[in-house]
């Protein structure tokens, strides 16, 4: 549809419009906002992994001078268990309410059970210490294995496993079971010459955004509320707070601040409903900010998991069948991303017979939240590691083996539908021909490759393009900018209006200044909000042409828009001078009024993005330390609107995946308390851990999008876990199936193999 189009602005690398504020410290993030008379809120959190709340006495806290309001679970309305959609995801609002403030049980170390608002942070902290809580400590479970063991302590007495026939009569910690796939795996394995099976485990890891959750809320005397917070979705915050507090969405205005990282972890609410309620109770604005320990203890990490994969293939490498079982922990309330894990594992490959079983299991850890391609990195770790083993077994090059089975247009996906135009083969080609792949390796070094896939998202977006009197334009959208998307939206508007991108001002509105937008996430903003911006800009161009036609007194079809000017193509014998956007803007009042375009849509035509990475590691055989010495990421972006930010997504996702593979994990003591809720011991990659990360952007246009765009943000985190593990295998000869590959584990593995 757009393969031959020559772009003027798309694909260039202008400096982002909000960049100046960010390099000078002027940009306002969640905690940078204050209101006069503001109180400071703090949350009391459970020190137990699993306990009944026998009693809470908040009177001593209220008696402390400076304390203006106190909340406990009973202050939140009771709502029935109902699955709603609010932004992008399915949410059980009762579970959400119970996570925001516990009711009769606390279910993890860090679970909120009370909140206070006081005139200073210090008084708020002291007030927490005065709240008297009597707990009845219960035994706890921290892994899927523990949770599913016979006789395991039950978190929810009303949880009966869904998806098992007949429905069990005893409660369990398995929230649900879903089966995916097609064909008959027995047949698939009968057709195989080689069958491999392995089990893999991954640990709980956190999104690790540098900015802690922060909110300032004010409940007005007239019931109108204002919330300033760092979030991936202002409309989501509005909807969730309304639901949790029994308000109408029209009573809540949410202003999204600049956001210091999200990666999915800010697609839900924690503090916002509490701050609103405290404000209502105290009659003053309330500011609440999590400290780093709270972020780790009480905001959603992603699942720990067990992954069992069995794969059969012919001697020539053709995959014949697969059988997969996925057990993901959801934290304390149901809803892990196990199904996405099931739909993405082996999704890049043609497999005629496949069965995938997905189990969603609750454990005494914080409720999981989305983390960049939720579910997919975990299952890909298993699938891509096993494919590497298969390549070894068959004596085939690992990229060659993937090429042989690669999905392409028309292939039936593992999760059912047939793929439309996709770029997996092209991505593998680019990987194979990259100089990294044939570079020599040194002693104790090894190379691993892995591929990955994410569906990407569409959903609802609204945007407006308003032309100023001087011919510049403001583009208003409603998706918080977490990675530079404003720059891409400005490029798209510039391309449609055909004016320099410097004359476009992109802004992110709040819930009262822009139409509804689903949240930022799911790799959807450049795609879906971009589509809305394109349509709004096209609407503006149509209006500009009409204005020119009016001025020239010609038919509309006698006006062409080119290079930011209206050109008269049928002037009834005359050739008037072209009218620039500035000329037309100046005369707007005379020709019909302000010139503005708007678009609201549910984006269709989502195109998935495939990626493939190469990782070189060096293993220190004395300490077990694994260093990444070279890394290359290749990905199909459809069309890179602003290549620097596409590269940034690829590099950032790869870095997170490397941390997940090598160092990151939640560590618990025997009481189920998190031992490393801080950046010292929850070790994310630092600058000295990583090499430069080379990137190659492949562009196989998504035929359903006017510019060919595919989302890119999430796919990059899917390949690295296996890419690193495969590299370590080739460096040491040892196959590691349990993450993270921390030095003690690697050392143990090397020594056991001697």
């Amino acid at each position, binding site marked *: 549809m757009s393969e031959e189009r020559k772009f003027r602005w798309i694909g260039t690398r202008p400096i982002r419009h909000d960049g100046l504020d960010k390099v000078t410290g002027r940009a306002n993030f969640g905690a940078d906002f204050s209101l006069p008379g503001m109180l400071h809120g703090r949350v009391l959190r459970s020190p137990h992994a699993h306990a009944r709340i026998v009693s809470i006495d908040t009177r001593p806290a209220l008696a402390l001078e400076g304390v203006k309001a106190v909340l406990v679970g009973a202050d939140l309305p009771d709502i029935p268990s109902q699955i709603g959609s609010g932004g992008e995801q399915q949410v059980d609002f009762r579970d959400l309410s119970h996570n925001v403030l516990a009711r009769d049980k606390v279910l993890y170390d860090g679970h909120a059970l009370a909140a206070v608002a006081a005139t200073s942070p210090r008084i708020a902290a002291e007030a927490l210490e005065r709240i008297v809580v009597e707990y009845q400590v219960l035994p706890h479970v921290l892994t899927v294995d523990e949770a599913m063991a016979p006789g395991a302590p039950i978190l929810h007495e009303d949880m009966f496993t869904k998806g098992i026939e007949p429905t069990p009569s005893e409660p369990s910690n398995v929230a649900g079971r879903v089966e995916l796939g097609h064909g008959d795996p027995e047949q698939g394995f009968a057709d195989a010459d080689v069958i491999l099976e392995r089990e893999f485990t991954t640990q709980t890891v956190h999104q690790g955004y540098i900015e802690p959750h922060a909110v300032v809320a004010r409940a007005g005397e007239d019931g109108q509320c204002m919330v300033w917070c760092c979030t991936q979705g202002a409309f989501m915050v509005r909807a969730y707070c309304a639901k949790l507090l029994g308000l109408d969405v029209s009573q809540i205005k949410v202003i999204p601040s600049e956001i210091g990282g999200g990666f999915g972890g800010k697609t839900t609410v924690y503090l916002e409903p509490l701050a609103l309620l405290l404000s209502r109770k105290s009659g003053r604005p309330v500011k609440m900010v999590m400290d780093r320990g709270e972020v780790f203890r009480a905001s959603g990490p992603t699942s720990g998991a067990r992954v069992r994969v069995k794969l059969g293939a012919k001697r020539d490498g053709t995959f014949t069948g697969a059988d997969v079982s996925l057990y993901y922990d959801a934290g304390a309330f149901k809803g892990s991303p196990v199904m996405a894990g099931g739909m993405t594992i082996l999704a890049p490959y043609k497999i005629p017979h496949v069965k995938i079983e997905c189990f969603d299991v609750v454990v005494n850890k914080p409720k999981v939240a989305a983390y960049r391609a939720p579910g997919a990195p975990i299952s890909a770790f298993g699938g891509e590691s096993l494919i590497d083993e298969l390549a070894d077994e068959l004596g085939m090059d690992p990229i060659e083996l993937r090429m042989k089975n690669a999905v392409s247009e028309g292939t039936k996906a593992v999760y059912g539908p047939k793929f439309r135009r996709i770029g997996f083969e092209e991505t593998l080609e680019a990987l194979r021909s990259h100089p990294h792949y044939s570079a020599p390796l040194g002693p104790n070094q090894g190379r691993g490759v892995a591929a990955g896939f994410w569906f990407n998202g569409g959903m609802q977006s609204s945007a407006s393009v308003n032309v100023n009197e001087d011919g510049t334009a403001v583009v208003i959208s409603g998706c918080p900018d977490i990675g530079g998307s404003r720059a891409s939206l400005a490029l798209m508007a510039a391309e449609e209006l055909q004016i320099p991108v410097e004359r476009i001002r992109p802004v992110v509105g709040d819930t009262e200044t822009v139409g509804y937008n689903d949240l930022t*996430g799911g790799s959807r903003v450049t795609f879906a909000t971009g589509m809305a911006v394109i349509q709004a800009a096209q609407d503006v161009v149509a209006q500009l042409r009409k204005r020119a036609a009016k001025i020239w007194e010609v038919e509309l079809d006698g006006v062409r828009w080119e290079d930011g000017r209206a050109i008269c193509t049928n002037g009834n014998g005359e050739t008037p001078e072209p009218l620039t956007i500035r000329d037309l803007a100046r005369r707007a009042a005379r020709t019909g009024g302000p010139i503005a375009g708007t678009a609201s849509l549910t984006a269709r035509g989502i195109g998935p993005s495939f990626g493939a990475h190469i990782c070189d590691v060096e293993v220190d055989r004395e300490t077990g330390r694994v260093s990444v010495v070279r890394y290359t990421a290749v990905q199909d972006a459809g069309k890179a609107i602003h290549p620097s930010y596409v590269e940034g997504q690829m590099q950032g996702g790869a870095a997170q995946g490397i941390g997940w593979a090598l160092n990151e994990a939640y560590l618990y003591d025997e009481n189920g308390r998190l031992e490393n809720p801080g950046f010292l011991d929850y070790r994310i990659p630092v600058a000295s851990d990583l090499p430069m990360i080379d990137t190659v952007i492949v562009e196989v246009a998504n035929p359903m999008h006017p510019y060919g765009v595919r989302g890119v943000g999430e796919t990059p985190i899917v390949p690295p876990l296996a890419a690193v593990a495969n590299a370590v295998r080739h460096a040491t000869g040892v196959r590691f199936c349990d993450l993270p590959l921390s030095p003690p584990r690697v050392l143990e593995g090397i020594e056991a193999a001697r």
Partner: protein
Amino acid sequence: MATVVFSRGLQQYTAGTERLEVEPGTVRDVIAQVLARFPALENRLDSGTAVSIDGEIINEPLLERVGPTSELHFLPSISGG
């Protein structure tokens, strides 16, 4: 006739039937036909279900049109991060 394809998981409720031909219409019409044929699927296709129509995944599908040669799959609703 449009075709509905059932995954292995849903085949538990369709007595092993993988493909069902249906009259074209909206997704809502198609679901009605599916439930008429396989009542056991009642409550298995809930609000958390998305569909893909001819390879395109759609999250709020009920009013989408399924054409005379379309292929429809039921999928779990997936969210990103």
